[in-house]
C-alpha cells in the first residue's frame, strides 16, 4: 500500500476511519485490553459522539488515534486512516507532523491541561510555530485572533498571563483555542465540558459548533452524557468495555435504541421537565483484565439470557446505517 501515491482519501471514503483498533496495556496483574476492536468513522464537517461510562476505553481510543499511548501500552492491531493515510504505519516524526496539524485534541480537565510555567500566549501559539513556522508579530496577531474567537476578554493584555490567572471556563476556552489553532481536519474533544458548570458548558458547546461551521472541522466528541450527544452530534457510537456496542445516526439511535446499554444510558437522561427521577445503571463496567466471556454487558443487563453469558453477539445491522451487538435488541 505504501507504493501508492498519497492523495486525499485515496483508499477510504471517510476523513477519519478507525477499523478494529486494539490497544493493550501490560499491567502487574496481566495484559489489559482496554480497547478491543473499535471501529468508527467521521467525515468533514460532521460530529461523531463517542459515548459510554467512565472506564469504557474512550480516552484510550483517542490516544490510540494520536498514537500517544503510555509506554506500558501499545496498539496491538487495527487501522487508523486519516485523509487516506494509515497513521499506524507512519514513523514517529511523520506522526509528529500530523499531531497538532491535521488532528488535534481538547482534554477533559482545564485545570491540568495547560502548562503552569508558560504564558497562555506561548501555549496558544506553539502549534502554529511548529507546523506553520509563524513567528513574531504575525504569530502574536494570530494568537490574539484566536483568543478573541474563544471570548477571552482583554486578550492583548492577557496573552502574557499564566494559566493560574484564569478561571476554569476560560482555561477550557484557551484549550479550545489551542485545539483549533492550526485549523485541523479532526478535533477530538475528550469530555471537554465535564469540569464546567451548566451555563458555561452550554456556551462552550455553542462555541465549538460555531468553530465547526466556520472551519468544517470534524469533531469526535467523547462524553458520557447522552444529552450532549443529542445536542452536538449527527452520529453516535456507544462504547462499552472496550467495544462499540451500538452505532448510527443520533436521531435513529435515540428514537429506536437497540442495545440495552444504550437504553440504560438514555434512561439516565433528565426529562425535559426535569421532574422525573434520574435512573442510573447498577454496577460498573468490567475490568479489561477480566472481561466476561460472552456479552460484556450481561452481568448488568436486565434482559440477559443463558446465551448472553456464553457467546459475544455479532455487531449486526438493526436498520439502515444502524448497528448493534445484542442477541435481544430493544427495550424491556
Amino acid at each position, binding site marked *: 500500500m505504501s507504493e501508492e501515491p498519497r492523495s486525499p482519501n485515496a483508499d477510504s471514503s471517510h476523513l477519519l476511519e478507525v477499523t478494529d483498533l486494539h490497544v493493550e496495556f501490560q499491567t502487574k496483574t496481566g495484559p489489559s485490553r482496554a480497547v478491543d476492536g473499535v471501529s468508527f468513522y467521521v467525515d468533514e464537517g460532521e460530529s461523531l459522539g463517542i459515548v459510554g461510562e467512565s472506564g469504557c476505553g474512550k480516552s484510550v481510543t483517542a490516544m490510540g488515534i*494520536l498514537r*500517544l499511548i*503510555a*509506554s*506500558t501500552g501499545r496498539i496491538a492491531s487495527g487501522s487508523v486512516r486519516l485523509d487516506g493515510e494509515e497513521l499506524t504505519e507512519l514513523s514517529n516524526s511523520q506522526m*509528529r*507532523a*500530523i*499531531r*497538532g*496539524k491535521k488532528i*488535534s*485534541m481538547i*482534554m*477533559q*480537565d482545564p485545570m*491540568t*491541561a*495547560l*502548562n*503552569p*510555567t*508558560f504564558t497562555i500566549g506561548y501555549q496558544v501559539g*506553539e*502549534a502554529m510555530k*511548529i*507546523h506553520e513556522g509563524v513567528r513574531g508579530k504575525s504569530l502574536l496577531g494570530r494568537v490574539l485572533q484566536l483568543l478573541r474567537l474563544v471570548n477571552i476578554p482583554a486578550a492583548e493584555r492577557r496573552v502574557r498571563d*499564566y494559566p*493560574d490567572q484564569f478561571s476554569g471556563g476560560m482555561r477550557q476556552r484557551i*484549550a479550545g483555542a*489551542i485545539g483549533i489553532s492550526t485549523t485541523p481536519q479532526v478535533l477530538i474533544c475528550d469530555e471537554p465540558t465535564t469540569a464546567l458548570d451548566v451555563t458555561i458548558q452550554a456556551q462552550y458547546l455553542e462555541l465549538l459548533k460555531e468553530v465547526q461551521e466556520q472551519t468544517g472541522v470534524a469533531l469526535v466528541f467523547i462524553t458520557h452524557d447522552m444529552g450532549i450527544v443529542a445536542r452536538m452530534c449527527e452520529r453516535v457510537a456507544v462504547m462499552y468495555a472496550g467495544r462499540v456496542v451500538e452505532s448510527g445516526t443520533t436521531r435513529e439511535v435515540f428514537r429506536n435504541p437497540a442495545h440495552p446499554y444504550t437504553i440504560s444510558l438514555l434512561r439516565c437522561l433528565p426529562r425535559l421537565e426535569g421532574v422525573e427521577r434520574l435512573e442510573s445503571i447498577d454496577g460498573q463496567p468490567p475490568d479489561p483484565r477480566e472481561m466476561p466471556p460472552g456479552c460484556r454487558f450481561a452481568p448488568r443487563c436486565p434482559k440477559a439470557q443463558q446465551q448472553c453469558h456464553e457467546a459475544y453477539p455479532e455487531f449486526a445491522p438493526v436498520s439502515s446505517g444502524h448497528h448493534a451487538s445484542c442477541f435481544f435488541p430493544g427495550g424491556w
Partner: protein
Amino acid sequence: MGRFIAQRILHAIFAMFVITVVIFGTVRLSGDPARMMISDEAPHEQYLEMRRLLLLDRPIPEQYWRWVSQAAQGDFGTSLRYQIPVSELVSTRLPATLELAVAAYGFTLLLGLTIGVYSAAFRGSALDAGARLLAVMGQAAPNFWLGIMLVLVFAVWLNWLPSGGRGEWRHLVLPAITLGWGPVAGLMRITRSSMIEVLSSDYVRLARVKGVGETSVLWKHAFKNGALPILTFASLVFLGLIRGSVIVETVFFWPGIGLLVLEGVNNRDFQLVQAIILLFSSWVIFGNLLVDILYVYLNPKIKH
C-alpha cells in the same frame, strides 16, 4: 514573601552567632596554642610573653569580641605558621578550590540531570535500571576511595592523567570527577522522580498532541515544571561540594582551602583554622539563605 525572607535572614544571623561561638570555643578547648609556639625548654616568661602576644591572657569574652569584630572587617589575624595575614593566605588559595568545585559541579549537573531526565523518560528500560545501579554504587563509594581508585587506574596504570597537583586542565579531571561523583546519585534520583510526575501530566500530553518534539517535551515543557525541587537540591549540592573539597584536595594535593586547613590543623595554626572553618560555615549558611530566596522567587505558588 518579604516577611518570609526577613525571617530567613534573621535565622542566618542567629546561626552565624552560634557558629562563631562554637568555633571559638572548640579552638580554645583543643589545646594551648602559645605552648605549641615555643619549645618545651623555654622559660616560663617566654610562654607568658607569647600568651600576651596572642592576646590569650585577656578575658575570654574580650578575645571572642576582638576576633568576631575583626573578622567582620576581613581581618582574621596572622597565620602563626606562615607569619602573613590569614586573609591573604586564604585569598591566594581560594581560586584553586573554586575552580575544583565549579568543575566538579559541572560534572555533577551534566551527569545527574541527563541521566535523571532520560531514566524518567524511559522508565523501566535497561537505561533506567543501569542508572539505578550507578546510583547505588555512587552512594556506597566514599570519595577518598574513589579518588585513590581513579589515580590507580588513570594515573598509575594507564598514565593518561596526572595523579595530583594543579596546572592545566588535565590536572582537574580526576579530582573534579572524584568530588562531583557523590551527589550525582542524589541529583539523578530527585530529577527522575520529579520528572516522572510531570511527564504523566495532562499538559505534557497536550504538548505531544500539539506535535512538539520529544527533546523539547522533556527539556522544555516537562523540565521547567520539575525544576523547582531539582534546582533546590542542585544548589545544596554546590554547598556540599565546597565541604567535600577538603578530602579531595588532600587526596590529589590540590592546593586549595581544603589542603590549607589540613596543614593548619597539623601545625596548630589556630588563627588559620578558625578563619577557614568560619569561611566554610558562613558559605553554607548564606548559601542556604540564597537557596531559600531562590526557591521563593521560582515558586509561583508562593509568589502569587
